[in-house]
């Protein structure tokens, strides 16, 4: 039985957050969040540190499961599936569809090749051998790493520079063919040049993927965002296109934040 390489059917559905409340150990972190995150765009979530933006991002991938005493209400819908209620098969499939690039580059403790192949192996997306090799190269190419790591595909991923590691993590996320990519301050640990490289990648990737980024660098958001969500103290203060939010902010808090009165 010849298994053809699977390409996952992609839809261009928006991610819809409805009445989302989240508390950890009784302390409310997110309060009544309602959002519609459009497909094939870059949405930047901005706000002062500690406002709950990272928690929101983790909720979208259900990584909140890993913390004790978390209580979630409301729903996050991708198509007709609710991420908050998903379990078992549905949950691992949803996580595949919504990839996450962590703040710190975190290569898995294995070779460069295995890092990219890992997700495709567990989800059985390609067969071992030529097929896998081709797809690993494809995703390394997508993040511009293919020439840089040529000849050392099977050496440990932790030998790469930090910037390369972060691009590898991106390739690893792309390799399971997600529709959404969540990036949690994915450039904050990088030097300015690698940071720009990753930024440019995101802009290129939005043709095929929908990108949601948490950032506290306003200039970065201004450079690449199509949509902006401003969160303050666990509540959504203002949303809109980048132009709207940056150039014509409606809310006083947003105006002050943009002026740099608090950060």
């Amino acid at each position, binding site marked *: 039985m010849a298994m053809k390489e699977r390409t996952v059917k992609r839809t261009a559905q928006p991610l819809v957050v409805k009445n989302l409340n989240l508390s950890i150990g009784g302390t409310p972190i997110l309060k009544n969040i309602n959002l519609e995150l459009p497909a094939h765009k870059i949405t930047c979530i901005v706000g002062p540190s500690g406002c709950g933006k990272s928690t929101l991002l983790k909720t979208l991938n259900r990584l909140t499961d890993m913390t004790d005493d978390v209580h979630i209400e409301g729903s996050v819908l991708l198509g007709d599936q609710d991420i908050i209620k998903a379990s*078992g*098969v549905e949950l*691992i*499939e949803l996580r595949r569809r919504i990839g996450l690039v962590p703040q710190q580059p975190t290569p898995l403790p294995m070779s460069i090749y295995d890092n990219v192949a890992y997700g495709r192996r*567990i989800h059985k997306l390609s067969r071992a051998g030529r097929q896998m090799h081709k797809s690993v190269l494809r995703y390394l190419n997508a993040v511009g790493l293919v020439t840089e790591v040529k000849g050392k595909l099977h050496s440990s991923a932790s030998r790469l520079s930090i910037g390369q590691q972060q691009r590898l993590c991106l390739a690893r996320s792309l390799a399971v063919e997600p529709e959404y990519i969540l990036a949690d301050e994915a450039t904050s640990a990088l030097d300015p040049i690698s940071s720009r490289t990753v930024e440019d990648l995101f802009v290129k990737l939005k043709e095929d993927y929908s990108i949601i980024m948490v950032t506290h660098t306003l200039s970065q958001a201004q450079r690449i965002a199509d949509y902006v969500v401003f969160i303050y103290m666990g509540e959504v203060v203002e949303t809109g296109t980048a132009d709207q939010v940056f150039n014509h902010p409606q809310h006083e808090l947003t105006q002050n934040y943009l002026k740099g009165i608090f950060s």
Partner: protein
Amino acid sequence: MIHRNRRRVRRDKTSAIVMMVMVIASFAFVAAMAVGLYLKAQPLLSDHSIWQLLTAREWKPSQNEFGFLPFVMSTLLVTAIALLLALPLSFFTAVYLTEYARTWVKKLVYPALDILASLPSVIYGVWGTLLIVPLISKHIAPHFVEFSSGYTLLASGLVLCVMVLPLMVSLFVELFSAVPNQLREASTAMGATPWQTTRRVVVRSSIPGMIAAVVLAVSKAMGETIAVLMVCGNMPQIPHSVFDACYPLPALLANNYGEMLSVPRYEAALMFSALILFVVVLLFNLISRIILNRVKAKD
């Protein structure tokens, strides 16, 4: 595809259940131990009160007299001597290692402690028999008493002291190294000598942990069997000086398991001594671990 994912999830869930059962079985194991020992000690407890057993002096199993006082006292005294010796030794060693020592000293002392920690109890017993016992009977005791066999309270305490040293030193070292360096620098910057800094900053902030470490060492010392058994003299009496023989609870248990089935109530009496050890060690361990966990959580 869906089918394959189902299999993945099923494997995940099944493994979770199996592992959880194992974890719960470990709770059950502790409970089973307590219940088992209690049930076996029950015949003795049904006609003697615990207080009676612990305070009576006469130990004549064949006449149904079971006084645990000599054994309890021996256990307490041996432990006390071991700790009295080990506490200053391990404290100063740990302070030296964390606050003063140069690298070459550390490279010498840590492996030495590793060796102490790995040696089996019976080897300590051999060492005690060959070195400590003759040392006491020939060179130390004659200065104080007329005669001592060497198989004494002091010998047991000394051997035990060396056995708990690695545990105490490593717990102390861990506590002291957890004290942030900024605190030391702040104190030194005000003109404190290294010892003043150690005493007022490092030790003071480690006190709860140190108490827990001592409690842990006490419970280890109380349950130690073979090494003590080999040097303690095994006489069911209340020792009056450190040059008297003693007979701690674990030794009682180890010496008599063979014949216990032949004398009525004897088995119950021995299991009662196991129960005492179990309960005391359990409580001491619980207390000290809870304190140590708290201390760690604060860092």
